[in-house]
């Protein structure tokens, strides 16, 4: 299959009488087992180190150094593959297709950072993920993203996660890997528009903290959910929060949430808020149901991404005279002599699978947006500045802003400058 998909980049010489022997097409060798084990070992060590640096050492500088190492090891040396973000697609495919033999290294890469997030929060994002670390290194002049936009854009990661699971589970492809903007950077090459996309994200990272991680990364979305359950996650202050507000603007990722204000309220206002909340809770199953319905609607179109459906559609159009000629794929299929009935039957099975997966995906998107609406309607009680477990990636930037932390370290606490 690899040979079949390989692209001959140059046409062979036109004159065979010169005796030029064409080199045989070769496949890249399978990665040695010990190298795979090295990758797993590296992941374990770097993950543990990141957790220790973020939670115990609370050292931004050391986390940065670890991030640089991850960029070089998991990024430039391993060329961005294998990575945990893409590995969740292997897991999804393995769950949906019992015939798919998932590599053990993919299982470890997909699940280990999730397990770590259950314990220590998103330490994987802090310094292990090369994508995040690279964007973090690029950040020079962070701009604050408005809260409403932050809330909305973060939903895109869940949408992307849903789509990626649909395509992976149906065997249509690993779109997270296909459209990974940083892999062309790590590989120093790629298609023009993917390189452009990667450069675009890097440029954006100069001013927006980790734009891919925050607004698109499907694995980050999963890690965020896992982090909600974590017991030993990052805390800004080692002691009591004095509400000095010094940490408030240290976070370029909008992950520090302030204490709730207690605005003047009335019984009517409270009743309105309660009605809104009740309405949104009732709306949740509706959104899920509509999402399921819309997923079923979009499924047959999304199925065109699958190579079998795409081929069957092309052959069907050729058969009905709607298009003229053949494509390379349809000509190759016809050359096999396989019956069309089988192709159409296979395509029908894939399409149905797509419809089912899309219904799940649509339901998932409805659920996520419904829950977001509910969460925005809940009146919270927060007394201190806290790191939002879903958003905080444990970069350790905020620690050195906290006077309590400085005291703990025995460092001088700078005096606040006069108001300008």
């Amino acid at each position, binding site marked *: 299959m690899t040979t079949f998909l390989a692209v001959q*980049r*140059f*046409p062979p*010489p*036109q*004159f065979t009488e010169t005796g030029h022997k064409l080199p045989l097409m070769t496949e890249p060798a399978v990665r040695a087992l010990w190298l795979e084990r090295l990758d797993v070992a590296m992941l374990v060590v770097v993950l543990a180190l990141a957790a220790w640096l973020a939670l115990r050492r609370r050292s931004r500088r050391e986390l940065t150094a670890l991030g640089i190492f991850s960029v070089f090891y998991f990024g430039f040396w391993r060329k961005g593959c294998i990575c945990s973000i893409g590995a969740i697609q292997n897991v999804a495919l393995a769950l949906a297709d019992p015939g798919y033999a998932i590599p053990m290294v993919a299982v470890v890469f997909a699940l280990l950072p999730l397990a770590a997030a259950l314990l220590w929060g998103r330490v994987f994002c802090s310094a292990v993920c090369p994508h995040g670390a690279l964007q973090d290194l690029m950040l*020079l*002049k962070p701009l604050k993203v*408005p*809260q*409403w936009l932050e*809330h*909305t854009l973060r939903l895109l990661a869940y*949408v992307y996660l849903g789509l990626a699971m649909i395509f992976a589970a149906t065997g249509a492809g690993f779109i997270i890997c296909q459209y990974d903007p940083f892999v062309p950077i790590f590989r*120093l*090459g790629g298609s023009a528009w993917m*390189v452009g996309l990667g*450069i675009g994200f890097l440029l954006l990272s100069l001013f927006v903290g980790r734009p891919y991680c925050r607004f698109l990364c499907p694995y980050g979305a999963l890690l965020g959910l896992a982090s909600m359950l974590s017991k030993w996650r990052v805390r800004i202050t080692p002691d009591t929060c004095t509400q000095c*507000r*010094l940490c*408030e*603007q240290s976070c370029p990722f909008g992950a520090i949430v*302030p204490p709730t*204000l207690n*605005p003047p309220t009335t019984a009517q206002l409270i009743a309105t808020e309660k009605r809104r909340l009740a309405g949104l809770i009732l709306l949740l199953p509706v*959104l899920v149901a*509509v999402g399921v319905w*819309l997923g079923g*609607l*979009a499924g*047959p*179109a999304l199925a065109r991404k699958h190579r079998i*459906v795409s081929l069957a*559609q092309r052959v*069907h159009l*050729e*058969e*009905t*005279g*709607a298009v*003229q*000629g053949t494509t390379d794929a349809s*000509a190759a299929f*016809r050359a096999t*002599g396989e019956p069309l*009935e089988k192709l*159409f039957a296979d*395509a*029908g099975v894939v*399409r149905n699978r797509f419809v089912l997966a899309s219904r799940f995906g649509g339901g998932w*998107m*409805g659920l996520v947006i419904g829950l*977001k*609406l509910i969460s*925005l*309607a809940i009146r919270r009680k927060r007394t201190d500045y806290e790191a939002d477990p879903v958003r905080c990636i444990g970069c350790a930037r905020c620690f050195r802003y906290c006077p309590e932390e400085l005291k703990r370290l025995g460092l001088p606490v*700078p005096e606040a400058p*006069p*108001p*300008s």
Partner: protein
Amino acid sequence: MKTWLYPIALALAIASGAFLLASAGLLVFAQTQGKVGALVNSNVRMQLIEELHKRPKDEALKQRIRQLDLQLRQKTFTQLRLSANCARAMLVALATFLVCAHFLRAQHRQEPNPLAWGARQPQQEKQATRIARWAAAALFGLLAAMAVWLGTAPARLPERAPAMAETSEPPLTVAEWEQNWPAFRGPWSAGTYRKAVSLTLKWKTPVPLPGMSSPVVWGNTIFLTGGNEKNGHVFCFDADTGKLRWSSEVKVSGPLPPPPKLYEETGMAAPTPATDGHRVYAIFANGNVAAFDFNGKQVWARNLGALESAYGYSSSLTLWQDRLLIQLDLGHEEDGKSSMLALDTRTGRVVWQKPRPTGGSWASPILAMISGKPQVITCGDPWVIAYDPVSGNELWRANGLGSDLAPSPIVASNLVIALKVNAEVLAIRATGTGDVTQTHIAWKTTDGAPDVPSPLFDGKYLYLLGGGGLLQCCDITNGKEKWAHDFAEEFYSSPALAGNILLTITRKGKIFLSEVGETFQPRGTHELGEPCSTSPAFHGARMYLRGKQHLFCFGE
């Protein structure tokens, strides 16, 4: 406080930043130059290669292409090296820029001043939450709109896959096939019929539209095709009375290619239809191919694209069981447009399609049983190729034919007789595999071959009728001429043998009857009264022949 490193870092940051911008510009420029595509898509190279196809022995041209090819490869590799080095340099520059920029940023760091931020505004935060709610709802709306939009363009697959059972028909037997005249020149495209037929006119009937196709007969039903400049029609006649039973126009759904240029001597309906007793199949120069049942109802139709051919498309159809076999020899060999196609007779779907290394030809494919196995044998420029009609696999091929190929081959004593127009007659043993050019040519003559009419074999002698009227009788074992007779007339119609009477029909419509074998003995003539370029069909004690305006029935 700024250290002495500050100006160095600043200079380095500016330099590396400028280098990054310049390198990015260079990369964009390299992309616009086509990179690897420079070699693949070079118009000059493609034009020269095209030229070489016309002058394959031009050594200077070959040398020029070689040099250009080398230059393009060198250019391509240079661009690739440049891009790779550029990317590496950019990486180093990026690292330098980041180190310097972070250093400079640290120099400018100011402690946060919450007092300067002012008090938090509950109303503003509430407003932000409200906007966030609406933005989330808008996102859902956007996703919903996208899903609805996607729902309008689902994957187009057949509603249900055609099951084999639903269209199962009793297989066509060889006996049924041989009892009728189902294709051009009869069941085996040989032009021979076991019985003699009297040339007493039984009936003649006008044909609604012109065409150069010959009649095919199944039982007491005769099929013909005709057409105007836009489309093709199929006609069905009663064999006993000559009455037109029905006439149907081919209707293909979907967009159609523009109609091809039509030629006076071929027109829209030069290919002869074929029938299997269930349906009649017809193909036309506009690429329409269709099946009609015996009541004139269209069963299926499709378009194969305009069949652009130098003298007009004329290759007739033939059949093997449920395979409708179509020889599509179009354009030049290097165009890659030629193919052999088998459609399912019940549904019209493509069962197999094989590209052919041939240019345009006007000959028709023929069926033959060789050693008990079916072969479909085709003639093109320059190959005679035999296929397995079931799978489409190529069985053998022989090189030796040329351009302007119109005569169809015949099988005579397990020899395939193929004609290189005006040049050679090839006799090929049809039992080989692969390229049999060097191994299976039994004999070949080099003193000319007919240009349009196809050959004929009576079981002992081979007859070759030239378009100029020269009839040659040759020994099938070695191709040597036994005798020759000049009719001094022009012929397009292929000769036919009914019993022991050879029928040759001139373009003006004069039928010569001759008794052939060891010697040539004229047995009379008959005037049709109108021009004729088609070949006769036989069934029962009758002969059916299409003139320019009429369909004629001779016999009992």
